[in-house]
């Protein structure tokens, strides 16, 4: 059976790294590994290289309009009032609402050909966050959990999967599904400081430490002769507590210089993306920042004038920041929603839900910057070239991160590929 989960307990560490399994004394080796040892083994070097990669998902919850962002159609009845503007990629135009991004498209691939069919919020969210349609009785892992499973260090001292979602509308917590509970997200809502990450004032640092040592003593005695991975994982979870507590400062934007904060802008979305960069810099494999709520059934143009200004500044600042730190080649920035919006403009000057022809972007790690993939017709009603489903998008994302998109998890006796059956990456988007 393939290993479907690990939690940092030693037995999992071995089985996850199959190549170590053959070596004698594998446990000791795993414990003492130095980077040099690692690099002398090509397979392991590959593995580590992959593990430096991270994802930041900008989740435009509620469904941003493709017309007002990445696939403008000015002059057509469905196009709305906004002009298109040229970008630093010759021949590619985007909406005038994204002037900053128009100067940074060399980082970014635009996909204009998503046809995902599901146009209700819950269903669209699950489709775009798991890469496949619901199946009753199966809890599929969400993108963040899969990425964390593939990229997190077993003994990591930082969170594996962080989600920020401040607005209450459409707030849905991602899930590890049938993967290990370790890969459930650390879910931040009202406060950007994770729950229970700080020591209570009533206990001193020393006592907190000694108490944990006492717990470990009891746990070790108990765990001896007890063949149970669940018990091992319990101990692993407690062993991660101190590391997680030490990572509390990652969530503190006050630690960023004023100039940097200004670059991201004063909005909450800006601050959260700055936190996302801090987390990724510290090695967190997956951070999702949700900006809700784009669901512009009424006043679509006012809504996008308002929210695109934020998206434009923050996404640009994030890409600049990652680039300047040399992190962009290892960080994949995704902008995505549960669906796009209708070509038809309704009586409230709104656009409704639309999943037949819409857009998203991939930037940075493994991505062919400046790529423009797929095409919609003049009115934006249908995809005419390069149609992609959610599974194809996932396959492309995995490939960009050097993760084999055909890898399978076992659910009981049933193999489940990480990108849905029949999905394939789109090479033209990949570096």
């Amino acid at each position, binding site marked *: 059976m393939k290993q479907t989960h690990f939690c940092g307990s030693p037995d999992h560490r071995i089985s996850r790294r199959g190549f170590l399994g053959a070596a004698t004394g594998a446990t000791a080796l795993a414990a003492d590994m130095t980077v040099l040892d690692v690099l002398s083994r090509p397979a392991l070097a590959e593995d580590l290289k992959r593990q430096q990669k991270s994802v930041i998902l900008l989740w435009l919850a509620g469904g941003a309009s493709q017309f007002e962002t990445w696939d403008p159609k000015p002059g057509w*009845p469905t196009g709305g009032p906004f*002009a298109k503007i040229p970008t630093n990629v010759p021949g590619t135009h985007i909406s005038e609402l994204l002037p900053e991004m128009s100067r940074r498209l060399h980082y970014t691939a635009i996909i204009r050909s998503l046809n995902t069919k599901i146009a209700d919020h819950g269903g669209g969210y699950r489709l775009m966050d798991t890469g496949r349609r619901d199946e009753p009785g199966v809890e599929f892992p969400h993108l963040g959990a899969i990425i964390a499973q593939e990229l997190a260090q077993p003994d990591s001292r930082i969170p594996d999967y962080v989600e920020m979602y401040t*607005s209450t509308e459409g707030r849905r917590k991602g899930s590890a599904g049938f993967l290990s509970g370790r890969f459930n997200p650390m879910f931040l809502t009202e406060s950007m400081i994770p729950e229970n990450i700080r020591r209570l004032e009533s206990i001193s640092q020393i006592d907190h430490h000694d108490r944990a040592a006492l717990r470990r003593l009891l746990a070790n005695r108990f765990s001896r002769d007890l063949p149970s991975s669940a018990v091992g994982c319990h101990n692993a979870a407690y062993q991660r507590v101190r590391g997680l507590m030490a990572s509390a400062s990652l969530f503190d934007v006050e630690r960023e210089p004023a100039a940097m904060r200004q670059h991201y802008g004063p909005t909450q979305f800006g601050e959260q993306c700055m936190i996302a960069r801090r987390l990724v810099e510290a090695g967190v494999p997956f951070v999702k920042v949700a900006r809700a709520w784009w669901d512009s059934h009424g006043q679509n143009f006012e809504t996008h004038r308002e929210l695109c200004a934020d998206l434009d500044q923050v996404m640009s600042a994030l890409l600049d920041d990652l680039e300047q730190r040399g992190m962009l080649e290892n960080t994949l920035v995704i902008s995505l929603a549960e669906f796009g919006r209708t070509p038809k403009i309704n009586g*409230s*000057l709104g656009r409704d839900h639309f999943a037949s022809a819409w857009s998203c972007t991939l930037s940075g790690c493994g991505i062919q910057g400046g790529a423009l993939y797929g095409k919609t017709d003049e009115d934006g009603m249908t995809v005419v070239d390069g149609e992609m489903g959610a599974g194809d998008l996932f396959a492309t994302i995995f490939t960009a991160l050097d993760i084999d998109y055909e890898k399978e998890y076992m659910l009981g006796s049933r193999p489940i590929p990480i990108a849905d059956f029949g999905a394939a990456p789109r090479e033209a988007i990949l570096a």
Partner: protein
Amino acid sequence: MKPTSLKQTQEGKREDILFCIAAGSQPGQYFFGSSDFGVHQLDISNEMAQPIRFEDGHQSYVTGLAVVGGNLISGSYDRQLIWWDIESRKPARTIPAHNRWIRRVLATPEGSRVVTVADDMLCKVWNVETAEFVAAFTDHRPLTPHDYPSMLYAVAISDDGSLLATGDKVGHVSIWDMESFAKVGELEAPTMYTWDPVQRRHSIGGIRSLAFSPDGEKLAVGGIGAIGNIDHLGGPARLEVFQWRLGKQLFVAEDNDHKGLIEQIAWASDERWIVTAGGDHKGFVTFHDAETGERLHQEGTSSHIHGFVFDRDAGTLAACGHQHWAQWNLQSEAEVG
């Protein structure tokens, strides 16, 4: 004399969205600004007449129109003002006017000037004859208190041409002297902002319409009230009337029967009532008592109304909106009785 009924005399369906309307010099002659980026002319005194589209000029939605003297001046989200030759239906003069969407174009009563408001948050005054820029002024912040772009939707001029009012997205109103362009008063209608800090973190409201009473002492402010779900225009149509010099609010009228934005307001010449129009997915024309705000009469319409012109003397109201225009005759108590 109070309005008791509206009798629709004519209407027309369209493919496009009509954002603004101006009355021509002939009875029954109207101009519309459209989502097809064009200006259209319609003569409804001739029932067979088809609307005529002017030649291309703007590159975005046409949202402001003024007929002044023999001039037709349009403003658009493309930031430009166009002076049209009505005869040839060609642009006579095109000028870059603002840095952001132009929201409204309005002529002064005596016909020498035209004013514009736009999302660069400026109110600008132009010479009608020469198209020369006269003045620009603002008292509206470019960013909302939540650091998102604000918008300057509404402008009104008093009947005697001495006063001008501007109203923005966050509910701030400034009143200006038209001689000096000095600010002479301000009002706040913050409910109309509709910022939702918890569920959806955005806003779709704003002050969308303003109108001075004929004596210039009162100012009617139109928009939308608190919205539960700001994905939709699901709030009450909201009218606030102020004695602006005193900063005193006279009344607030909220309408939950016909929801949405109040897009345009006009006063009766005797100041006894106020007519408003607007809507959500559907539309409304509503008459309010100007003293109490009480609803005197109301007509629901099948589509959102973006603008109207009201001829006080003829008692006709012509409105345009989502894929639709219509004209009504106003009937009053006296006539019916």
